[in-house]
């Protein structure tokens, strides 16, 4: 039989409890350290890219034609234009497919079919992008040669699951009362979808599309085989291979001169800044607009 604990010491941990609390504190500290490490890595990456690349940015760099093989002069103008062109085409293809798929899953699909298509979407989202590149290479590029269209097709396969999953989420978050009200007024299904559900979900769909654009702009693997030109000038013809930022970074790196590596950093820094800005902007905008509507 142990004595009644001394009330003076009852509230201070001792022995076993002290050990348990020490373990717990150590663990909490470890999770804080992990989160701190991730943020530190992000800051370090952006800082290092800025340090290496910011000196390159100039009007000439952003507009001049690509650097020739001797590594002298040049900029990334055509690559910027090419990336913009391919991402635009890819998004024009991926947006309707992605939204329609989400609409089908949310409004029309029977549970069984819905599950099959959802599984397909997950698989598509998990596809290694290099395999998407190989696919379009075998399907299009082998027969018609490299082109902006082939590159855009590959990028659109990367974009579709992103757009579709996020659109599905925002369509499902449209309050049931809205479409029920439309039904009660005798509004037909398609009018409800076009007039009520899509407009209400549009913020989410737009955000998803913007994020998909940011993702596509930085993808290298799908373009490596499908739009990897050797020309240095501006190229807008979509049936020709067009230069683009990610592949140009690789090419500059492969040239291997100090000056071309510096240009690769310039392009990389630009890419990071644009992608992070798009990401942050889209999230902030979505949060603000949803708060405004009380969703």
């Amino acid at each position, binding site marked *: 039989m142990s004595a009644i604990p001394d009330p003076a010491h009852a509230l201070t941990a001792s022995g076993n409890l002290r050990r348990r609390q020490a373990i717990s504190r150590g663990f909490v500290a470890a*999770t804080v350290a992990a989160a701190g490490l991730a943020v530190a890595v992000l800051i370090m*990456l952006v800082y290092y*890219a800025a340090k290496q690349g910011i000196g390159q940015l100039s009007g000439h760099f952003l507009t001049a034609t690509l650097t020739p093989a001797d590594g002298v002069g040049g900029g990334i103008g055509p690559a910027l234009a090419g990336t913009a062109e391919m991402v635009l085409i890819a998004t024009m293809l991926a947006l309707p497919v992605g939204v329609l798929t989400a609409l089908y899953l949310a409004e029309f699909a029977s549970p069984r079919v819905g599950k099959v298509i959802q599984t397909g979407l997950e698989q*598509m989202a998990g596809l290694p992008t290099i395999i998407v590149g190989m696919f379009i290479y*075998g399907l299009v590029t082998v027969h018609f040669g490299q082109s902006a269209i082939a590159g855009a097709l590959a990028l659109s396969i990367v974009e579709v699951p992103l757009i579709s999953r996020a659109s599905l989420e925002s369509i499902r978050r449209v309050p049931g009362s809205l479409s029920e009200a439309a039904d009660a007024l005798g509004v037909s299904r398609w009018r409800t979808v076009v007039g009520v559900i899509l407009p209400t979900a549009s913020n989410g769909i737009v955000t998803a599309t913007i994020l998909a654009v940011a993702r596509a702009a930085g993808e290298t693997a799908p373009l490596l085989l499908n739009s990897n030109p050797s020309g240095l000038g501006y190229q807008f013809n979509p049936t020709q291979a067009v230069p683009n930022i990610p592949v140009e970074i690789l090419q500059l790196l492969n040239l291997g001169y100090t000056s071309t590596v510096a240009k690769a950093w310039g392009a990389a820094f630009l890419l990071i800044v644009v992608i992070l800005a798009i990401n942050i902007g889209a999230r902030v905008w979505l949060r603000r607009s949803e708060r405004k509507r009380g969703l």
Partner: protein
Amino acid sequence: MERGFSTLPDRVSTLAPPRPSAAGDKRAVLNRLNATDRRANRALKLLALAGGALVFLVLIAIVYQVIDGASLAFSKYGLAFIGHKTWNPPANEYGALPLIYGTLVTGVGSLILSTILGVSIGLFLALMAPRRVAAVIGPLVEMLAAIPSVVLGLIGIYLLLPFIRSDIEPGLHSVLGFTQLFGPAQPVGNSPFAAILVLTIMVVPIIAALTRDLFLTVPRELRDGAEALGCTRWEMIRGVVIPTTQSGITAACVLGFGRAIGEAIAVALVVGGVGSIHADLFLSGYTAASAIANEAPSTISSLETSSLFYLAAILLAMGITTNMTAQRISNRAGRVR
């Protein structure tokens, strides 16, 4: 999800056929509108179905195309390709084993690191951090996932490799050298180890975001109950949070693994590019995805192209298997909960 109400006006109008009167004119107009509506309903449904079907068709086409591209290599090597130990394009000799080995080594290595880090960050964001802090740090961690792989590769070459070469390699070799995993430091840092670190940066945000959402679903009463019984934070997490979310955590990690084995560009820039099977993580290695990225743009023979497609088929099979596994695990978890 069927909304029966939308067909109501149709039924009303068919019950009362149009009569030749002023009211009848109106009804005829209504009927015509209803017919348009019906057609539009059907068109919309078909259009949406077409979207969903297209996703599926593309997937099937991908599988078909990749297998079709591999046919030449398959007819030459057959299944022995998978077990053949030499990948030597200049000699026109192709075997997938070293690349599959490298893929698994880098995948598992980054899986171990990013599970530890990712789940910790998920726990921190969901359960430890004050809401304001989590609202800032959560998106920052997700930003890591938005950094393009080519930029990560670039950073790997110029920031990570020198650091690995001068600090990490000698340190790990002297402490853990006996495991055979960490050999003597190499003059160049390009290695599966560098690839593991780069992949970890890519996978951590995925696992962190998925597990954070998972931990937020643990009912508050369970957590409070554990703490009311006198559990410390850590005991509450180990006894309540982890067990209730176990399968979801596994699914998140498997998804992360799938991402890691499929990454091509960032790995190609830092992994070294020599396909051989060895335990030493500091010796140059190679992976299936990075071999495709390195060699596909400049193949020297149709056999090489076809062998790369064969590699892609293997990689695709690995990817689909991992994704399916992740889905099955999380589905099962959903049913239990």
